[in-house]
């Protein structure tokens, strides 16, 4: 009897711990929305999102240049990392020998462990001058950001795609080889299509990571409030806007930064939900 009570008590405690993450999520969500929504309503939803001017000193808050900036940098990062990550995961899952895999896979996963400020630092000291001297502009640019972010999201996309490829039953490979396919044909025509949804989910999650990254982006992006028209233009993203101005913002300005957070929150939530749904479809 006593033991049963103890068991019940322990399971309740564990349940509470598990629920605390939901609690934290709820609190953060409520807080961001409560702080941010008034500014959005005051400016008008459409003006807030599609307006061009962000002038905190005059109380004008529109974030379109930053939305454009975030998406430009994210798209650039995907252009850099998706081809790499796909080739990497296909090689590791389908072609690499045991030893190669044992070395390369942890190495790629280690990339995820490097602090983003280090990426930013390398970007500023190496990549930015390189772009300035060899390609043009002042170096702080969408291009620089895309390259660094592309490397940063490489482990996410690679390891999720890798898992998706490994989850394809060997019967697919055998079936293809038994029809006279070469190994590459079997991978390209039977295995990759079967892992398709998993790979798409990997890319979507990578997009979420790229759009949420802050530190490295601030250091390399240049942070100008313009809509980037060339890869060499500087940009400011939603995340960097919050981080750059929160130090001195107050009142309405501070709320506007929370409103920026609301938009970011919605974008990232949407990407995550999309990824989950794609994965669910694959399982079924």
């Amino acid at each position: 009897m006593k033991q049963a009570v103890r068991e019940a008590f322990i399971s309740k405690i564990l349940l509470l711990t598990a629920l605390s993450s939901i609690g934290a999520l709820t609190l953060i969500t409520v807080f961001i929305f409560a702080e941010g929504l008034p500014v959005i309503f005051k400016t008008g939803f459409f003006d807030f999102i599609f307006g061009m001017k962000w002038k905190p000193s005059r109380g004008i808050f529109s974030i379109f240049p930053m939305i454009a900036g975030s998406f430009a940098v994210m798209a650039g990062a995907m252009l850099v990392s998706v081809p790499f990550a796909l080739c990497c995961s296909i090689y590791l899952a389908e072609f690499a020998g045991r030893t190669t895999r044992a070395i390369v896979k942890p190495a790629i996963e280690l990339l995820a462990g490097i602090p983003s400020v280090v990426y930013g630092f390398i970007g500023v000291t190496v990549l930015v001058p390189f772009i300035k001297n060899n390609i043009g502009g002042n170096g702080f640019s969408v291009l620089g950001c895309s390259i660094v972010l592309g490397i940063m999201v490489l482990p996410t996309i690679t390891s999720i795609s890798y898992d998706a490829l490994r989850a394809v039953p060997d019967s697919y490979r055998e079936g293809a080889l038994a029809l006279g396919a070469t190994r590459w044909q079997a991978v390209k025509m039977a295995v990759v299509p079967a892992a398709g949804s998993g790979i798409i989910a990997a890319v979507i999650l990578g997009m979420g990571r790229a759009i949420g990254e802050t530190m490295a982006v601030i250091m390399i992006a240049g942070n100008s409030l313009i809509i980037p028209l060339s890869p060499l233009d500087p940009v400011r993203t939603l995340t960097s806007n919050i981080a750059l101005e929160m130090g001195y913002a107050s009142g309405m300005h501070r709320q506007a930064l929370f409103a920026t957070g609301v938009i970011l929150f919605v974008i990232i939530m949407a990407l995550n939900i999309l990824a989950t749904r794609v994965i669910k479809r694959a399982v079924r």
Partner: protein
Amino acid sequence: MTNGITAYDKGEAPILKISGLDYYYGDFHALKSVSMDICRNSIVALIGPSGCGKSTLLKALDRMSDLIEGSRVSGEVLFNGENIFGAGVDITLLRKRIGMVFQHPNPFALSIADNIKFGPRVHGEKNRETLDSLVESSLRAVGLWDQLKDRLDKKATELQADEQQRLCIARLVAVEPEILLMDEPCSTLDPIATLSIEELMRELKKNYTIITVTHNMQQAARVSDYSGFMLMGELVEYSKTADIFSNPRDKRTDDYISGHYG
């Protein structure tokens, strides 16, 4: 030949001539000097208890066994007179000409039509009309055309098990093989689906040579022209199915067929 049986009774050269085939997985001697002739347009059933080497033999014939690490082969398999283990053999071409149907139906996660087109595409066929007509003729050959012709875009993995297995056979038919290897093709199907696949095998025999592995002796008796009984890597007895079931020469065959073990 160890058991003195050849299958030349049609008076023509065998499509496959297996002689002295040994097979090793690491230290395990999986096939022991197997020799047998396979006649064109016949169905050969390989029977025997689990682990006797019948699946290994089947996999060796289209060299799918190459995929297994640490495997080794010696001996000779002449396919239309050419050794399949020879140096100049193009494995992809060999596997086109000797197709394999697996125990578990394994259609690709593609549409029904793309499953059929897979083989021809692998071998370089690009013409859309040719591919489309192959879809129709292959599905007709396995009796699926009428029921599937309106949903060729549907995912093949959503079909019923026996339809999937027929589709896998149709997928082979599309590359116009000469021999079909079937590794317990009915073991995951219910009795009615099994009968329909057996019926299909008899139909296919007109154009192909079929070698099938089965656990099911009634099936071997029903469907095959020749049967080989294997035990511990050895081909104990190989002859006409009618003979082996009514009048086995080897005591071990007799024991197995009358249900003493296996």
